[in-house]
């Protein structure tokens, strides 16, 4: 039981990852898909942050009174990944805005229908 509780963060990671992935696959709305993508990416951030944490550890400050400290590297790495995720979301939303302009819809099926209608 205690061991399962110790893995709590990892269970959250997996739940979030699968939730995001499901939204990504199952939803037709382009904005909802991006939200799914975001949840999916956030789960990975949590995975990295969790692996850097040391139980009872503090922030890594160079001081004699501090003996146990968390690994800062995964946290720094994930800052980069957050920036990348932000850029992806911004770009994705910008593309959705332009799709809305030219197709006047952001539903995947309606876009497919429009394209088929034009080909005929």
């Amino acid at each position, binding site marked *: 039981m205690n061991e399962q509780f110790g893995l709590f963060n990892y269970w959250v990671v997996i739940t979030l990852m699968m939730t995001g992935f499901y939204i990504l696959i199952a939803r037709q709305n382009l904005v909802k898909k991006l939200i799914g993508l975001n949840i999916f990416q956030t789960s990975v951030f949590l995975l990295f942050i969790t692996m850097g944490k040391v139980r009872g550890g503090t922030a890594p400050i160079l001081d004699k009174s501090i003996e146990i400290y968390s690994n800062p590297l995964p946290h720094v790495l994930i800052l*980069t990944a957050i920036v990348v995720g932000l*850029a*992806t979301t911004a770009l994705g939303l910008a593309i959705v805005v332009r799709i809305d302009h030219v197709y006047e819809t952001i539903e995947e099926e309606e876009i497919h229908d429009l394209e088929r209608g034009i080909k005929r």
Partner: protein
Amino acid sequence: MIAEHPVIQVLIPLLGAPLCVLAARGVFAYWVALACSLASLFVATRLLTSVMATGPIVYELGGWAAPWGIEYRIGPLNSFVLLLVALLGALVMLAAKKSVDSEIPRERRHFFYAAMMLCQTGLLGITITGDAFNVFVFLEIAALSSYILIAMGHQRRALYASYQYLIMGTIGSTFILISIGLLYQMTGTLNMADLAARLPAVGDTRTVLISFAFFMVGVSLKMALFPLHMWLPNAYTYAPSAVSAFLAATATKVAVYVMIRFLFSIYGPAFAFEKIDVSQILGALALVGIVLMSAAAIFQTNVKRLLAYSSVAQIGYIVLGISFANVNGLTGGIVHLFNHGLMKGGLFLTVAAVVYRVGSSDLNAFRGLGRSMPITMFLFVLGGLGMIGVPLTVGFISKWYLILAAIETGHWLAVALVLLSSLLAVIYVWRVVEFAYFQPRDRSSDPVGEAPLSMLVPTAILVLATIVFGVSTEWTVGVARAAAVFLLGGHS
């Protein structure tokens, strides 16, 4: 001087991007981009000659020693891929001006060139770095800029194609990020050489197995390995022609390079090919992809889409070579990585020339072009012969090594399917030839002239290179064989 080359290689296009934006409207952005591309080609050439002469070059970023700092490590394999990216970057840029002027509105052109520079930065960065997390960062730089470039296509389908690529590409690179995270968790390092040294000790754990699974799926998405290729045909069809040429020749090839690098110099052949035996599934997917995608190419009515499907099939050849995991197979795979870049770049540039003159890449638009654009169509035919694998072209060389490797390992089915797919390639190249040479042009349509010299010359250089390297194979095969031996003989 050569000691600083690795970082200069990435810095040139990285600094070129903001310069393009600063140059703003007018023609300056183009000249900035062209100058940067040529400079980076020069640097890549010097790096390759230096690596072949004196062995791997190591560069420590900011003077921080390897396991702590980021290290650029250049061996025979990545200097070869660097040259491919820089060469295609420079030649496509040479040819791009007229094509971009006709396809991209004036007020967006400097952003277009800036995105082009960033894409080059990303691809060169992935290839040059020796740090696993750095690979992810450059992967995203290249990916984000290519979403922008594809969305700039003038048809509205380009936007939707770009969106689809964005979703698939982000899933792929996030999978790779998960895999890198799990590797870090087990080993506490991100440096590739260090990872390779520490992984065998923990190779039996489930975490490493799962990281391997995430990596393989992620990278297969990135390189459009069948059946994860769904994003590619739309993206290449609706992107601006110059972008199709650059991405088709380099982007998926760099992803293949990432797979080779992780398989052989991080996880190691002993883990990937003996313990898990990834060669079974890679080989099977590659063969199914080669045949199905070559067949799919036959039924396309748009030449860009036809070439895109053929690209997915050609990725299959490279992966097939990797899956043999012996010197001949890997040599064939690496040589094909380079050769296919040259051929596809050349073919897509001829299509760019047709789009520039006729305004469409539809098969019907090719009617009668054999007469009105003789040089362009002649170059297309030469490139097409390479795709088929006719002797004296580069396509023959790669297939020769692949078939040698297949016979060596007793995979007769692979031999048969590679030969079958060459026949399928004859059909899809022939379809274009038939429309260009044997179908008359509509009387009502406007007369069409030959492509401008600025587009013909770079295309001709690429296509003639496929013949030159098909006749004298010492150089390309020599470098590829050196890379294959290097990879199979353990990590650096």
